[in-house]
């Protein structure tokens, strides 16, 4: 019964979305206020209906209703409650339902909180959101019904892929989807602006919070995914250039570009047409991400769906959205007024370079991800594209961006002189050069690339601090005055500071961990000792543990430093009898500077176990950096500019905010 309610709610949501995508559009054309308002009602109703469907599915999972195919195939009675709930989106149908839920949440938020939006713009945005919702609801209802019943319900389900039974996987997909789907709002705003033929600073101010939200969650999602892979896969890898990772990375790169170009539209009303185009492309890349993962077209670690009809359906949605968007762009962009001029050296021009480099980076990942498919289609050969390709293409192309990202914040809007601006950067430059020189001497020049990488990281981190120091006139005015400037500095500026610094952390961590990680792979018996880096490791005992739906072999290890034991670590190998699969629970000891990482392997025939011990210097900063970047986004989002009424915003800002800027 519950499932039927859910199914019915989905059908109603489809109907509502069809209304939402048509009437408000017509209403905006006719300037009919009541027709335009239909969009808001539909947005909220769609949300309620999809929420009912989602709750119905979750309830079916929690109630172990194995007469539903999805529950029978992806759950079991003995599974812990949390994984019954997260099991809702650990499969194709459920994860698409989550996708749609997030989509309608965004539409409902626009409907409910977009009070300051001009009515026609709001109606058009909601109509386009409605079209996307219609397409994906139709996809759910016609190809991926989550509520399909089985004729004969089994007594117990066949269980969920144990590798997905992990807290990291509980929040990773929702975060990614919040990111992907969040970019749909930018897409809808872009198309609505094209229909109206009007883009102004207010438009950019409406869009930017949504882009920021999407970007924050995508950053969070990618960081969590990387961390999950690190601790669950058992060999200490954290980024694989796997197609499924790549398709989340492409919208991130494009979204980062969009974040910066929308800033230029908002502040200076330039780069207007480019920002519109980028909005369309970013959402396309998000759709491509959904398509690749859901269709399994590029087989890789996480794709658990392979059914061509579904792939074709999403491909159609992708083509209509992108093609339609680009077509509308081609016809309507001449009507959009060109933006304000700026000098060749200015904050704007640095952001133009940022965009050019980010787009090339995204294109490189795109080529690397899809080229094997192209070669396969031609049919003469099959190739693989893995980390070595990206190390030789993506990395060198990304380095210039990392260098100029420090310079940008020192430039003034509209017009600046490069000489004085660069002179302000002497301190960070000096610190980085000293760091590079010192490290080169220390390592006897043996790891030049890693040392340069760390130098780059120092450049970004010190540069970010320096920008803040210059802004508050540290050491130029009394400290109390610096403090008061700091307090009146808009939050968006701290957002910039944190996000840039976070990227600096990530760069430094990558350079360090890839170069200086150590590993020790050996067979250990109980009582055996070994060393990793400066730590001693002793296998204290191995015992069998019974979990709720698995059995585990748990190794207990003792870490010691200078002969003194200071930490006990456990590493497990779990066996899930229902699925006949094994997973790893690695033991990780972190002191926030480095990780000691232990994974248990098979027992050998001589009473020992294969044990893999790794030392990962600065590895924690990969994820601290990622979270710092996301935090920067959230801090920026809390800026009063986004909270106060649009139009009044400029007057309310402290005067220095406009001049020195974000």
């Amino acid at each position, binding site marked *: 019964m519950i499932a039927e309610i859910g199914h019915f709610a989905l059908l109603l949501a489809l109907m509502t979305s069809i209304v939402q995508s048509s009437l408000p559009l017509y209403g905006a054309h006719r300037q009919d206020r009541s027709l335009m308002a239909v969009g808001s009602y539909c947005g909220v109703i769609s949300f309620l209906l999809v929420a009912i469907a989602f709750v119905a599915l979750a309830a079916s999972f929690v109630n172990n209703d194995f007469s539903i195919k999805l529950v029978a195939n992806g759950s079991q009675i003995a599974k812990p409650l949390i994984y019954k709930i997260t099991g809702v989106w650990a499969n194709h149908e459920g994860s698409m339902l989550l996708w749609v839920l997030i989509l309608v949440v965004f539409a409902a938020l626009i409907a409910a909180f977009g009070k300051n939006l001009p009515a026609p713009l709001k109606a058009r945005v909601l109509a386009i959101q409605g079209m996307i919702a219609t397409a994906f609801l139709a996809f759910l209802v016609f190809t991926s019904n989550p509520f399909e019943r089985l004729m004969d319900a089994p007594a117990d389900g066949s269980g969920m892929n144990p590798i997905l039974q992990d807290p990291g996987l509980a929040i990773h997909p929702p975060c990614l989807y919040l990111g992907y789907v969040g970019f749909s709002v930018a897409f809808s705003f872009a198309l609505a602006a094209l229909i109206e033929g009007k883009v102004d600073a207010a438009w950019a101010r409406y869009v930017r919070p949504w882009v920021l939200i999407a970007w924050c969650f995508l950053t969070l999602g990618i960081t969590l995914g990387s961390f999950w892979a690190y601790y669950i896969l058992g060999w200490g890898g954290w980024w694989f250039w796997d197609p499924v990772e790549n398709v989340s990375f492409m919208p991130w790169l494009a979204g980062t570009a969009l974040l910066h170009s929308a800033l230029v539209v908002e502040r200076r009303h330039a780069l207007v047409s480019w920002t519109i185009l980028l909005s369309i492309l970013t959402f396309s890349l998000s759709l491509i991400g959904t398509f690749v993962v859901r269709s399994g077209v590029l087989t890789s670690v996480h794709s658990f769906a392979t059914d061509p009809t579904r792939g074709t359906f999403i491909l159609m949605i992708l083509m209509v959205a992108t093609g339609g968007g680009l077509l509308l762009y081609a016809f309507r962009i001449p009507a959009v007024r060109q933006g304000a001029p700026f000098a060749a050296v200015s904050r704007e021009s640095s952001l133009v370079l940022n965009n050019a480099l980010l787009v090339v980076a995204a294109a490189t990942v795109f080529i690397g991800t899809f080229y094997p498919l192209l070669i396969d289609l031609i049919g003469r050969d099959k190739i693989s594209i893995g980390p070595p390709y990206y190390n030789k293409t993506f990395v060198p192309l990304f380095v210039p961006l990392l260098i100029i990202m420090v310079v940008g914040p020192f430039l003034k809007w509209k017009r600046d002189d490069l000489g004085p601006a660069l002179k302000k950067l002497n301190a960070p430059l000096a610190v980085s050069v000293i760091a590079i020189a010192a490290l080169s001497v220390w390592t006897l020049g043996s790891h030049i690339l890693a040392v340069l990488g760390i130098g780059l990281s120092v450049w970004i981190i010190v540069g970010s601090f320096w920008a803040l120091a210059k802004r508050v006139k540290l050491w130029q005015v009394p400290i109390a005055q610096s403090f008061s400037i700091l307090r009146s500095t808009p939050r968006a500026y701290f957002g910039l500071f944190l996000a840039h610094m976070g990227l600096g952390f990530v760069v430094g961590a990558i350079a360090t961990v890839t170069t200086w990680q150590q590993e020790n792979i050996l*067979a250990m018996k109980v009582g055996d000792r070994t060393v990793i880096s400066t730590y001693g490791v002793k296998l204290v005992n191995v015992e069998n543990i019974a979990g709720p739906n698995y059995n585990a072999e748990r190794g207990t290890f003792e870490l010691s430093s200078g002969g003194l034991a200071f930490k006990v670590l456990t590493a497990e190998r779990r066996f899930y009898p229902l699925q006949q699969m094994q997973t790893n629970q690695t033991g990780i000891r972190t002191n926030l500077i480095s990780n000691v990482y232990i994974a248990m392997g098979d027992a050998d025939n001589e009473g020992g176990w294969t044990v893999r011990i790794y030392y990962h210097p600065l590895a924690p900063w990969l994820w601290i950096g990622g979270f710092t970047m996301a935090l920067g986004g959230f801090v920026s989002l809390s800026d009063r500019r986004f909270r106060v009424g649009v139009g009044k915003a400029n007057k309310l800002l402290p005067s220095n905010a406009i001049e020195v800027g974000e």
Partner: protein
Amino acid sequence: MTRVLAIIFLFAMATLGPALAVLPDEILKDPALETRARLISQDLRCLVCQNQSIDDSNAPLAKDLRIIVRERLSAGDSDAQVFDYVVSRYGNYVLLQPPLQQDTYVLWAAPFLLMVLALSIAFNYLRKRSRLSEGVEED
């Protein structure tokens, strides 16, 4: 193509588990040779896995390949000879770094050509913009 994918998928399902790669008994006595073996392994694809190198995979085929790599190295092969040997048996698909050949020129050149293109468009745009800005007084 679909069949190949299906087979790979099936194998992958069987091997999705803890991916514990190099085993203690495989490790060569000579550390220099072992280091070379590890570096080579990182650039070879485990053919039955989803995008893993043989260094990261616990699939039996990956183990066989790791042993082959070590045997060739112990026999005195250079790194290039080892790669050639593996490619002659398994084709280009086994290389995680695609080879430079007629159908991959575009793959290798495109990122850098795009960079040149994007920068020239950006600079051209900036030049036009700044010329505009010189004509306009402060607003």
